């Protein structure tokens, strides 16, 4: 036990003096984390605004045939741009991206209108265009439909019919999302950042303590210390775990502080990230640090040099963190299996805490138990690796 502590303390102190390690553990997550979070929030908020209120221009062929319709469109911030294309030219202009859509009003529009016959208009747009053509076409057709409904109701009133009788069923959309659930994307990002910062914070120490030790030539001397070899590596894993925990604690604290300055409520979102919630976030994700430290140490032990270790570990870090990027999109529901999957289970627990929901005891036990169990197995395996002669390289 004493030997493990000796190794732990030496690794902890030594790495505290290494600028690269310090940077990755104490600066990367705590500084870049909140910045990234704020940036993503900002982008998602401004994109939300963009789809609606932004003024758009609409090329119109035959605008002179329907002045009232044009006026209605203009009133809704759709700026009309008169053109004189024929159909062939419209198709070419859209294909060459000169315009994204066009509205064509045929010459007989006014005549049919006057006879109360359906007057047709045509909207040309490319439905495969992901850069706004389709969405703009939607907006134009919505505006025209609303105008058409309005006119039809006026016509009914003129003929002495109550327009309400033409609406046997009315749909009311009721949005039951709470401000907290609307912040769900930001929540997902936060848990991803925290877990990534944690693993990254221990990465360089894991490399230095294994591949680095061998590359420097100090491994041979260390292995002649009169203690069981696995104890040496347990001490190193403990130091890596400690750095990971510190890195995550700082990242969570920094995010909590930063979120105080972003007024999420104004965007209809809310996050509970007070001191108690931050503490809970730390507690539920801490078991993952043991697994992370074990994993990185095992992977780094197989490599021959610092450089090689670095490339393998960058990959090893993305293994538990990448799924978190997609999990929000995939709509995965927490099940006992998911709650015993390291990194996913921590992600769901963190989401629940951030949403201000209660945590279920079985979930907590599954999550911590599975991570600690797998972490323990990895530590044991790392110990075995150091009993092999091949570890000398």
């Amino acid at each position, binding site marked *: 036990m004493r030997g493990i502590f000796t190794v732990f303390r*030496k690794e902890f102190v030594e790495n505290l003096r290494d600028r690269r390690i310090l940077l990755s553990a104490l600066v990367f997550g705590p500084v870049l984390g909140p910045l990234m979070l704020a940036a993503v929030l900002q982008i998602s908020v401004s994109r939300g605004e963009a789809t609606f209120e932004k003024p758009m221009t609409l090329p119109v062929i035959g605008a002179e045939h329907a002045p009232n319709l044009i006026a209605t469109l203009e009133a809704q911030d759709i700026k009309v741009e008169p053109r004189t294309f024929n159909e062939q030219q419209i198709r070419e202009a859209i294909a060459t991206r000169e315009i994204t859509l066009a509205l064509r009003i045929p010459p007989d529009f006014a005549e049919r209108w006057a006879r109360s016959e359906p007057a047709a208009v045509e909207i040309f747009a490319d439905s495969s265009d992901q850069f706004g053509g389709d969405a703009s076409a939607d907006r134009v057709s919505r505006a025209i439909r609303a105008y058409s409904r309005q006119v039809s109701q006026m016509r009914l009133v003129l003929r002495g019919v109550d327009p309400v009788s033409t609406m046997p069923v009315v749909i009311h959309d009721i949005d039951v999302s709470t401000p907290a659930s609307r912040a769900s994307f930001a929540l997902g990002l936060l848990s991803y950042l925290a877990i990534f910062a944690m693993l990254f914070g221990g990465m360089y120490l894991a490399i230095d303590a294994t591949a680095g030790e061998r590359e*420097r030539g*100090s491994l041979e*001397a260390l292995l*002649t*210390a*009169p203690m069981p070899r696995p104890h040496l590596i347990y001490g190193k894993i403990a130091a890596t775990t400690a750095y990971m925990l510190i890195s995550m604690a700082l990242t969570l604290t920094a995010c909590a502080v930063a979120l105080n300055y972003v007024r999420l409520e104004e965007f209809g979102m809310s996050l509970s990230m007070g001191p108690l919630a931050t503490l809970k976030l730390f507690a539920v994700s801490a078991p993952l640090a043991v697994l992370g430290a074990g994993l990185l140490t095992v992977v780094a032990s197989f490599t021959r040099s610092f450089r090689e270790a670095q490339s393998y570990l960058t990959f090893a870090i993305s293994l538990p963190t990448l799924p978190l990027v997609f999990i929000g999109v995939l709509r995965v529901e927490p099940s006992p299996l998911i709650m015993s999957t390291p990194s996913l289970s921590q992600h769901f627990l963190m989401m629940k805490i951030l949403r201000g929901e209660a945590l279920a005891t079985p979930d907590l036990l599954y999550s911590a138990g599975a991570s600690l169990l797998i972490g323990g197995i990895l530590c044991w395996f790392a110990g075995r690796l150091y009993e092999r002669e091949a570890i000398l390289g």
Partner: protein
Amino acid sequence: MITVNALSKRFGKVEAVRAVSLSAPDGRITGLLGPNGAGKSTTLRMLATLLRPDSGEAIVDGQSTTTSPIEVRRRIGVLSHASGLYPQLTARENILYFAELHGIDRQQARSRVSELAALLEIEEFLDRKTKGFSQGQRLKTALARALVHGPRNLILDEPTNGLDVMAVRNLRALLTRLREQGHCILFSSHVMQEVALLCDEVVVIAQGRVVAAGTIEALRSQAGEPTLEDAFVKLIGTAEGLN
């Protein structure tokens, strides 16, 4: 006191060490001389419990390297081929770390470091980070690290590699002093003059086998050659790898 009985080690198809036997008594400096690739390092690594022999065993002060490696490690100081130090720690911290790994309490470790610093003349850079140390400074620090638990036996693998003339002289003086204190010193080298200058006993090793052993005088008469160099070349069977 180190005794080696028919130690063998193979790496895949390569027989690195074949039934090597030797004995290094206390108060003597024993040199393991042989060309590059003769099996010197492998033999010393087995003695240091870093490698497990395929057959045979080594006994250090009555403890077997195969059955009680931890007891052996308490009794040996090892200076490995690359005397790797921790660059972010000072020389003192490097030495103290190993004292702690050996279970020496802080108070005792501190006085032991001062003692060794005086013996090895390293006080001047004792509290500097070892990053940027010269070869000589590194070697002395590594030597202090190997001696911190006061082992009776000292195993040095090519200790003079990369040292300048002054540093070699210093090392020689130091080893002589340790011998006077009754230590058992076993070191490997491929530099004949070094061995001739320093050793009481020489074990000549080539292609994984011991080809001769004894005092320098004895070796010379055994080979029937007037000079050391000729004697070694004759014993080894080739001049390759010697200098």
